[in-house]
């Protein structure tokens, strides 16, 4: 079992009705009124479900291999283009050395692979103090923060 964490530490999971993108697209109406989690695979790009994102309390994006970086763009687009405000969860091959990037792209919970040490992952969320780029949490790149 993966260990579910946020940037502060372990968190309890919340029970939601889970739907895949295929199920959602086929039978949207049948899920009316339920609190939903959408699970998407790494090849399901954000343009396929971004407009519907507000229907979900949680969107879980799968990293089938940690080296598959598509989920970073999906997360960022969900937050910045589709203005998704629900929970965004990284699932699958979620490792200590990627969580800092995931956080910056808009994930807020992480199903850390079970062999990963939770304390090390929590520490990794503060790897860099002042990154160069803008991100989901601060729209200003360092060159705007530097001058302020």
């Amino acid at each position, binding site marked *: 079992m993966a260990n579910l964490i946020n940037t502060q530490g372990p968190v309890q999971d919340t029970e939601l009705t889970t739907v895949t993108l295929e199920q959602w697209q086929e039978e949207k109406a049948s899920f009316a009124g339920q609190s939903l989690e959408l699970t998407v695979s790494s090849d399901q790009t954000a343009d396929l479900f971004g407009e519907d994102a507000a229907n979900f309390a949680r969107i879980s994006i799968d990293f089938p291999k940690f080296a*598959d*970086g598509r989920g*970073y763009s999906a997360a960022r687009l969900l937050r910045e283009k589709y203005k998704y405000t629900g929970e965004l969860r990284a699932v699958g091959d979620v490792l200590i050395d990627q969580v800092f990037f995931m956080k*910056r792209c808009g994930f807020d919970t992480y199903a850390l692979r079970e062999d990963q040490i939770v304390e090390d992952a929590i520490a990794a969320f503060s790897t860099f*103090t*002042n*990154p160069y780029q*803008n991100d989901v949490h601060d729209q200003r790149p360092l*060159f705007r923060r530097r001058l302020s």
Partner: protein
Amino acid sequence: MYVYDQYDQQLLNERVAQFKGQMERYLDGKISEEEFLPLRLQNGIYVQRYAPMLRVAVPYGALNSAQVRKLAYVARTYDKGYAHISTRQNVQFNWPELEQCPQILADLAEVQMHAVQTSGNCIRNTTTDEYAGVIAEEIVDPRPYCEIIRQWSTFHPEFAFLPRKFKIAVNAVPGQDRAAITMHDIGINIVKNDAGDIGYRVLVGGGLGRTPILGEEICAFLPEEDLLAYLDAVIRVYNQFGRRDNKYKARIKILVKALGVDRMRELVEEEFNRLKDGEGKLTQAELERVKQHFIDPEYKTLSDNPVELTAAKEENKAFSRWMERNVRQHKKAGYAVVTLTLKQIGTPPGDITAEQLDQVADLADEYSFGELRSTHNQNLVLADVEQTELFGLWQKLKSLGMATPTLGLLTDMICCPGGDFCALANAKSIPVAEAIQARFENLDYLWDLGEIDLNISGCMNACGHHHVGNIGVLGVDKKGEEFYQVSLGGNSGGNDADGSSLGKILGPSFAREAMPDVIAKILDFYVDQRTDGESFLEVYRRVGHTPFKEAVYGKPD
């Protein structure tokens, strides 16, 4: 050059700490080999044939003397006493111990150097013209733009796990391509529009490797402040839609070919239009801040061709040759741009010893405001030398073996480390380079041949840029034996912005021993065919491929 402030230094220090921790966890068995791989790659560490190789970043080729001395220290302390200048202006060490790499990186961080993203499927070191800032032809100095790209790409949260590596190059000289931008994933040409505004003409989808393709124009004019938003948009499209099922089809060039550049442009512009007026837009204040790091040093008011120089040239034929070949016109009167060739016979192209590094650092301090550049032709440059000092500098360079007057000539070869070091290589490349250098060492003959790019790669990953050599040599493996395939007619742009071309394979490959003879046949045919002043490439383009082929293989019956 760019000097780190507290933010830059803090980021680098945090990186050193991060990798130290990662290495400790790896050595403790807490990170698997497979999962450690991208972590070490993004810190410049390959595992090669005999030992790890550490590739240190030299952003757009800029070095100061303190950094060069530190490289000498690393070579002496952790390696076998030498370093290698790569074809992307970086510095490679072939023999460090894996466990020592975190300490090497900590040492390098003291002089604002690092190995960040010099490998792995991420945005790599941005390259540019080695003469940036000192030649009159450029529209603006491209280095501030490269530095802005460096900062934006460093630990970019979204683009650390792209489908494949991603390389950006910047050219700022109109009518020329001084950074081989057509061969990069993104090529940026700094241009001015009719209103006099600075902007960029952007190419996308160029690259060498197994499928060599020249980049295509995706944007004719991008305003100056929109650079980073546009790069974000291009790479976001690539990160989502680039192929990940086959590493040989994963570069952006394959995506651009599959979609067509027009569709690619639509996707990029849709994303760009959303981003361009956001907080990520560059500010004139930031452009100005970075440009302040690249303002001219305190040049003296001098005149060109001082009497001492003219006299020395008249008196000394060898000096005058070196002047003609390795010294270039500077934008400022009384100064010159000097290239130090690292192509001595008996040394692999681009190799430099720790002692030479220390001595070159001293020369930079004495003659060139303490700065140096590395070049994609695997040489070094002192960019700001007073013309009155050239004779003295030449004498010192001669004793260092760095004054061979062959810049741009046949023996100024580009050559990858090849099978002597690299685990990917199919064949050795250094012995071929050495055999050719030994065969064609006669300076009069080399001068008579004129400018020829001879590029050698040990495998089809093309680190030696063989596709764009006027003469390209590619090492191939045939049933466990090393052979060499020759191509002709490649060109990386250079003085002609539209002159880039990919070489065409001449025919069946050759054994290593045959290579000097093969090159000799090609050169003899060129000399026989040329009319006054025609370069090798001009003759090749005029007479065509077949006559050259017949000159090497004989006429078919």
